[in-house]
Structure formats: C-alpha cells, structure tokens
C-alpha cells in the first residue's frame, strides 16, 4: 500500500494575474513522502501554488518538477497529481463508488481491478458499504472522505489538499484532522496542503512554508516557526503575540540582546533574541508570547499597567494589560480564572526569549 514518495520542486516560480503579481519567484523543495503545509493569509499566493502544481494555472516563469521531471508543460490529466478540493467537487450525479472509480475508468484497465481498488479506497477512508449512496445523502465529513478516496484511487504521485477541513463544523474538524493525517501517512504519498489556519498547518504538516505577499517568509517545522520566527510577520501570524516597541540597549554574544521598552523608560530591560542585523539604539519591535510573561497586581518592579479585560479559556486565563505608554500586552496565567483587576505590573519569564525585529517604518 505504501507508495514510495517523490519529490516536488518549485524553482523560481513567477505568476501574475493581469498586473497583480501573485508569486514573485518562489523556490521550494518538498521531500519524498513528506506532508508539507503551505500556510498564509488569503491572497498570499498559496492556492495559486497548488493550482500551478495541479496544472489548472500556467506559470509565467520558472520550473515545476515532480520526481525531478519538469511538468509545467503537462496538462492536469497527465501530471499524476491527485487533488482534494476545498468544495470537494464531488460529482453530484454519480454514486460514491462511481465518484471513486472515475479516475480509474478514465485510465481504462480491467473492470475487476477497478472494483477492487474502489473497495480498497473506501475501506481506507472507512466508508465500506456506502458504495451506492448518492453524494447528497452524505454528511460533510463523509463527503470529504469520498473526495480523498477519489483523489487517491488512481495512485497519484502527489496529493494536493486545498483547505481540506474548512468546510467542516469546528467540532468535526479536530477529529477529521487526525483521521486525514493517519490516512495520508498510511499511503506514504508526498502531500502538499494549503491552509490559512495555523492549527491545521501545525497538526497536519511535517514542515510548513509560510507565504506572505507572494514570497516564502519561512520554511520549517512547527516548533521552529513558533520559537524562532524569521520575521515579525511570522511571529504575529503564527500563534498569539503582542508587539511592544523599544530600542536595543546592549548586544550580547550570538543573537541575544537586551531591549529597553519604550513604554516605560525606568523599567528593567528585557532579554530578547534578535533577528537580522541590529545595532545599539536601533528601534525594534518585540513580539511577546502570552506565556512568556506574567503579571502581578499592585506595586512591584516591571512594566506598570492596568488590567483591561480577562478571557478565560479553561486551561488558562488571558489578561489584556494596557501599559502606561498606551500599547497593550496579552498575558497568560495558567489555572482557573483568578478574576484579577486593577493596576498591575508585567514581567518577563525565563525560558523562550521573545523575538526582536528592526521596527517597520510604517508601523502604527
């Protein structure tokens, strides 16, 4: 059952629609058998990358390679690429079995072989016994699984997943996500997934490429993106973070440095990890994760502020603290809702260092 995966490569791919540049020279290699997630906000070009790979769009410049073979000139039918569409695009006039068999019939071959493959695929997605059902009779989750079975049936070399979970109820999503990952891993196929939800990318993707305005901001594993973001955009897009402005006070060895936060000149400087070329007195944005700080009510050393709101999620309480200089910072306090109010100070915790980036010119 396990197919030997093939590699997928984007080599300086450029694509524009009319005058809008959607992909500005993107290069990326997806390893054989890997599940790779393309993450990014809408309009970042991630869906275009997927559609280029599938052959629904033609690139303007660059190369596309599947198993080291150029495919950019091949029509979709001859690329050996299976796709799970966001809307599933199941054929509503065909039964479940006919949908799954569609790609097999196109290829010809023995009737019995196709039937066996359909049965195998439906078993894989746990829909045996649903062969004769009509698409409209299925739940959203079942439709998604039929679409997956249909995409996998003709044994494609690469599987493409376009926002595979966005059409499902939030309650169903988590369960389906694990299911999808299990099924795809079982087949061992190289998979490229597109999503705008970080959680989905983190759970499904072994590696993640974060796209922003037609370029790849960072490629790496989930923890790398979270702990060591390459840019302010990555830091704010992946996970929660508050941005505080300040200036570099002192450079230490490696990429460590201390930053004096602008909100309160007298407060203790923060220990940060710098990204890119920074010099003393450079203005920086510091991205602070909620779990990297703590708060204490009343007078104490730290950044003084006022608790503005509390949000209780079950495992933690998140406090929004308005600092004296006006900016807000979010602080996670593990445990039950403490109902804290009033004046407080915010302090840096040890452990992961917040990232500091050279301040953007046009920042609010």
């Amino acid at each position: 059952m396990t197919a030997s995966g093939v590699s997928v490569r984007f080599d300086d791919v450029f694509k524009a629609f009319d005058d809008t540049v959607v992909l500005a020279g993107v290069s990326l290699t997806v390893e054989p058998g890997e599940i790779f997630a393309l993450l990014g906000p809408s309009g970042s070009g991630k869906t275009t990358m997927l559609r280029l790979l599938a052959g629904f769009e033609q690139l303007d410049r660059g190369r596309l390679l599947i198993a080291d073979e150029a495919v950019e000139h091949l029509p979709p039918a001859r690329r050996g690429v299976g796709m799970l569409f966001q809307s599933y695009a199941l054929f509503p006039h065909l039964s479940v079995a006919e949908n799954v068999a569609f790609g097999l019939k196109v290829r010809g071959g023995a009737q019995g072989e196709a039937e066996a493959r359909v049965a195998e695929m439906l078993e894989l997605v746990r829909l045996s016994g649903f062969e004769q059902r009509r698409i409209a009779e299925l739940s959203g989750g079942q439709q998604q699984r039929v679409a997956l079975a249909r995409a996998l049936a003709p044994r494609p070399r690469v599987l493409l997943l376009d926002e595979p979970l966005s059409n499902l109820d939030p309650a169903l999503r988590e369960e389906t996500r694990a299911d999808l990952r299990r099924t795809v891993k079982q087949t061992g196929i190289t998979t490229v997934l597109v999503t705008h939800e970080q959680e989905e990318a983190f759970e499904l993707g072994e590696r993640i490429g974060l796209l922003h305005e037609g370029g790849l901001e960072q490629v790496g594993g989930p923890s790398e993106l979270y702990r060591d973001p390459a840019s302010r955009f990555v830091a704010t897009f992946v996970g929660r973070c508050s941005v505080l402005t300040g200036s570099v006070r002192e450079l230490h060895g490696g990429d460590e440095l201390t930053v004096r936060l602008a909100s309160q000149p007298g407060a203790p400087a923060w220990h940060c990890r710098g990204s890119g070329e920074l010099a003393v007195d450079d203005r920086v944005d510091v991205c602070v994760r909620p779990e990297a700080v703590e708060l204490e009510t009343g007078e104490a050393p730290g950044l003084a502020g006022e608790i503005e709101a509390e949000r209780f999620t079950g495992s933690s309480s998140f406090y929004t603290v308005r600092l004296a200089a006006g900016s807000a910072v979010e602080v996670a306090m593990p445990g039950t809702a403490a109902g804290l109010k009033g004046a407080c100070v915010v302090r840096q915790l040890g452990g992961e260092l917040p990232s500091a980036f050279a301040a953007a010119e046009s920042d609010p």
Partner: protein
Amino acid sequence: MSAAGAVRRAPQLRSLMPWLVLAFLVWLVGYPLLVVAAEAFGIGSPGGGGPTTEAFRSFFTRADEWHAMWRTLWISVLSTLAAAAIGVPLGFLFERNEIPGRRLLGALVALPVALPPLVGVIAFLFLYGESGLAARGLQSLGLDVSWRLTGAWAILLVHAYSMYVYFYLFTRAGLSGQDGAAIEAAQSLGASRSQILFRVTLPRLRPALAGATLLTFMTSLGSFSAPYIFGGGFRVMTTQIVASKLNGELRMAYVETTMLALLAFASLLLLRKIDPGLDLASGARGTPPARRRLHSQRARVAAAAGGWVLACVLLLPHATLILMSLVPPNTWTVEAFPPVLGLVNYGDLLSSTERLRPALNSLWMAAAATLAAVVVGVMAARLSLRRGGLPGRALEAMMTLPWAIPGTVFALALAAAMSVNAPWVGRFVLVGTLWILPLAYLVRSLPLTGRSIFAGLRQLDPRLEEAAASLGAGSLRTVLQIVLPLLRPAVIAGAGLAFITMLGDFVTSIVLYTYDTRPISIEIQSSLRIQETGIAAAYGVLLMVLSAAAFIAWDDRAGGRL
C-alpha cells in the same frame, strides 16, 4: 506579463475555438443584419447602383410607413399597460391569498404562455370574430348585434390576453422571493397595509416588474400573428415589412426592417434603464409571508367562484378552438351552435400524407433547430465563461442578440443575406432550399437555449471540471460525463422553450417557407384563407397539444423555472 521564458500550452486549436464559434455566430446572427442594412442603402445588392438614401427618404415621407412605426410603438406601450393591469393583480391574488383550488387555478391562468401566438389568435377569431361563437350566441338570443374584430382594439385585446402571463408569472416569482420578515418589521414599526404595499412590497417587486415590462414590450414590438390576422388595414411594422416584401418592394422592406431593428434596440436600451438589476432582488432571502386566509365561508365561495369564472374566460378561446376542430366541413351555417360534431377533420388530417406533412415538417425543423441551438449554446457558454474577456463577452452577446430583435427582422435579414451566391463574402443561396427555415429557427432558438445554459453553467462549480481533469479525463469526456449530465435541467429548460416556440413559429416561417418545408402555422393560415376552418382548427389543436405536451414534460423536468 513577462515574455522571457513564458510557458505556453501547445495546442493551437484550443485557443482558436472561441474565435471559430464566434465567427459562426457572427455569420449567422450579426452578418445578416448588416447585409439587410447595407441593402437598404443600396449597397451590395445585385444590379443596384451606388449607395443611396432614397429608400429612407421615402420611408419618412410616406405616411403609411411612419404611421406603421408610430403604431407599433403605441400598441406596444398600451399592450404592456393592459397586460400589467391584468397580470399584476392576478399575481397578488394567487400568491398572497389562500383561495380554494389555488394551485390548479394558478397553473391554468399561466397556460397561455405555452401556446403559440397564432393558436391564440385563431382561437380568438373563432370565439369573438365577426361570425364567431359569441356573436352567433348573442344573435340567437334575439339580440341584433354585430361587430368586426379588427384593427387596433382587436390587436390590443389579443396582446393583453396573451401577454398578461408574463406579468402574472414575474409578479408571483417576485412575491414568493420576498422576505416575510420585512413585512413583519414594517408592521411592528406601525405601517398600515397600504403603506406596506407601496413602501415595502412594490419597491422590492420592481426588478420583477421591470423584467416583465421588458419581456412584454419586446414581444409586443415583434408581434406578428395578431396584427396579421386582425389588423386589416391597420399595419404595424412587422406586417408592413411582410406586405412590402410580398409586393416586391424589396428595398423598402429592408429599410423597414432596419428601422424596426433600430426601434427594438432603442427600446431595449431604454427599458434596461428602469431595471435596477438584481441588487434589490437578491440579498437576504427569507420565507415569504404567509398567505392570507379568507375566514368567512361566503368569501371563500365567492373567491373560488370568481377564480373559476376567470379561468373559464381565459380558457374559453381554446375550448372554442377544440369545438371548431370538431365541426365537419359545410355543416354549420346559421345555427347558434354547430349542429354536427365529429372527428372528420382529424381523420382528414391524419389520413392524407399531404395534410400530415406540415406537422412532420414542424416537428423535425423545430427538433433540429433546438438540437443545434443546444450544441452551439453549450459550446459558446463553455468557451465564453472559460475564456472571458472580449471574445467571451462577444460570444454571449451574439447568443442573446436574437432575443432583442423581432422575428420578422431576422427572417428578412436571412432572406436578404442568403439569396445571393457569393461564398467569398459568406453568402450562399439558401432561400428556397430545405435549409433556410431550420437555420432561421436556429437563430431564434439561440437566446432561448443560451440563456438557461449560460445560467446553468455559471452555477456549476468550476472545480468539478478541474476535478475531472486532475483525475485524467480529457475535455470531451469531461463534457459528456460531467458537464452535460449536470447541466441537464438547464438544457431541458432552454431546449423545451425553444422547441415549443419553433413548433408554432409563424413570423419567420411566413417569410422563408417553401412548399416542401411548410410548417403547421402556414397550413393553418392557408386553410383559413380557403375557409377550411375545421382543418385550421384541427391543426391549431394539434399544435396546442404538442406544445402543451412539450411544456408539461419541460415543466416537470425543469422544475417549473422560466
């Protein structure tokens, strides 16, 4: 876009296809109109001299000519108003009130839409004509009445009778799409019933009414059967054109044709302005308000009785037609009611191949034209929506153009363009051959099939085709196995309408038919001319039955959408 290293897909034919289909449509739809306009100026006609505006000058100086133009215009305005006056209240009655027999009556009231104009016209003739059933009935009661059903009023009567259905159907559709919550909101804000009607319901009905106005006005502008049968000396543009052609005044006929086409265009552009588009109609779609129940027993009986009387009045002409078809030749002279009834006429019609020929002609020509219109429609719609841009818009425009142009105009245009053998400019002698009438039917079918196929394809998720492609299906397989099965309701809707329309076509046929291709409508007309009313009525009933059968089959499959 960057030229360096640009990757293009190889197949040349694929990129040429939109242009090939477009070229065919331009040749079939746009070109004949240009030819007729050119020949009106004396350009390109065989043996004619240089360009001249002489014919146009006489058009504007001869009173009967510009009178015809003026009459066409005011007949159309009055027809629209009359149709609205009948159709809108009926729409409210059946959509907003729960009256006994509502569903059946509501469907019966819509029936005239399925009947060819000529059938309605001769049914009227038999019922309300000079020696019709109504006149004879009154005379037999000792009343000394006589009237002639002729001229403007007769035309208006027939128009109002056959075109109120547009307003009726559009009003019902518009009302059923309205959100009852808007009315409840107005009520809770203290609005009275009349305030709700004028400030909530009617404004939101505007798109539907604008649509019905456009349809009725344009239909009336191109109406031919009613003015032809009832007009007498009262000529409108369509009948004027045909008269000029029969009189051999070809140049004048082309001028009239050009003028009518311009009038139609101008009307279309003007009427489009009152159409607010879909903005008002769309938006939140809620549940329509509950129908008003009549509480008192007496009111319910009165409403039911009124409804049935109305349905009888509306269906009386068609009942008369059936009756007339049962009257054997030369058996009805002075009696109020035909003394003998039998199936002689039908026997006649079915036993002789010569008599049956027109029915078969109509069937095959309508079927062939409809089939071709579906094929062209699917190709054009797919190419247009996929290609977009200028060729895409042009394809759609060519498909819809014949809708805006009266049938008489196209008939004359095709007659002008296809009566000359000049293959190098795309003109072939088709007039007088087997092909000209099916080709004319095709032109007239294009907007009917095209509209629903374009709409159907727009609703189809484009990802379905991509899914088929990524699963390895080629273009032909995708069309046959995915697109066509899913488009079936839209194709059936468009094809059904086209088939019914072409089956009863009179306006193009009268200009272009040959003896071998004479359709039912022409046979009805010639039977009438030689006083074979029974045969004419039997043909009328045949047409009515065929149309109704096609309509019912169509309505069933298409889920009743217009």
